[in-house]
């Protein structure tokens, strides 16, 4: 892969297709592998629950952008492909946004619903503890009980 690197080929008369250079493909692979190492390293550093999550997501978004731009040729593709991806991501954004609004406003509707839904637990100790502490009716079925003492946390 040394001399005479074509940047485009004639696919059909009047239509050329971009050819990605080997150097760029290699560079992208190296960056992706380095950032995989980085995301592991960052997870070892305690930055706080939400900051760690956002850093991990940011690195993943960066890596995904490189894959889309170079490996999936969006950089040199017709705009329509990027547009499809853009509206897809926008839709996912609305999906996440409305879920977030729901989670942050449940307590305004019903205090009970603001707490996490109690998981039907297989771990018997947790159930026995709750019964011993008088927080749980032994007769009540796990599925219907509103265990508000789960390890819920607001961050």
């Amino acid at each position: 892969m040394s001399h005479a690197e074509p940047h485009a080929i004639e696919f059909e008369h009047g239509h050329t297709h971009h050819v990605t250079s080997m150097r760029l493909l290699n560079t992208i692979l190296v960056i992706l592998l380095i950032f995989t190492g980085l995301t592991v390293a960052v997870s070892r550093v305690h930055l706080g629950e939400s900051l760690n999550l956002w850093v991990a997501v940011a690195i993943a978004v960066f890596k995904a952008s490189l894959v889309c731009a170079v490996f999936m040729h969006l950089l040199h593709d017709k705009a329509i492909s990027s547009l499809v991806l853009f509206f897809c991501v926008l839709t996912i954004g609305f999906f996440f946004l409305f879920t977030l609004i729901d989670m942050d406003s449940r307590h305004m509707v019903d205090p009970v619903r603001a707490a996490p839904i109690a998981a039907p637990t297989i771990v018997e100790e947790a159930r026995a503890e709750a019964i011993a502490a008088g927080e749980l009716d032994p007769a009540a079925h796990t599925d219907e009980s509103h265990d508000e003492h789960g390890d819920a946390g607001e961050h």
Partner: protein
Amino acid sequence: MTTIPTTGPGAGVQASAEPWERYTHQPHWRNREDEFEGAKLGMWLFLSTELLLFSGFFCAYFVLRHFYPDAFRGASTHFLDWRIGAINTAILLISSWNVAVAVRAAQLGQKMILAGNIFFASLCGVAFLVLKLALEYFPKIQKGEVPGAFFSYAGGHGYDPSPYDPIFLSVYWVSTATHGFHVLVGVLLLWWVGWRALKGHFGPKHYTAVENVGLYWHLVDLIWIFLFPLLYLVP
């Protein structure tokens, strides 16, 4: 290599030409370019529905992690080995590079580089699945580290499972198994493309299947790029 057509479909092509040189577009398309771009647009639309499918799992992940941060931290650290996840990430990234090189080789008419990279990428996919099944899924099923109500992990090894651990495992199993199924489909598609490449179906004037299966394989890689840190690296 025989004469390459310069005008019109199949013009000036000798009988001994590779199949890709003889390729003519389907009659309902104006030309090969429109056919290629149309197929690629269809692929991108399909890929966007795939992203929407996985966005449901990611949404569940964020909601449940928000509600049960301690369980997610404990379960991720105890049940998952980040080293397996990291190796699998590297495997998929390298295979993505192979597929990108394969598309380039198809554009340049390098048949053996095309087929070689496609088959190597499919081997990476098989390695991913073998690691996943042998080191994660089968031991997990044996130890009862399975989703929701099927959870029967007895604890031990200095770890006391939280009652919410099965929730983390539900997210883990559903998202990674759906992703794993996509890897399996991708491997089968790569074999199909590799086999056709060996028969000389793809070259500078026709490589639609290489391009689109490549896009699919990159998407599988893309989703794993998000799954790996979210599932294996909860600090």
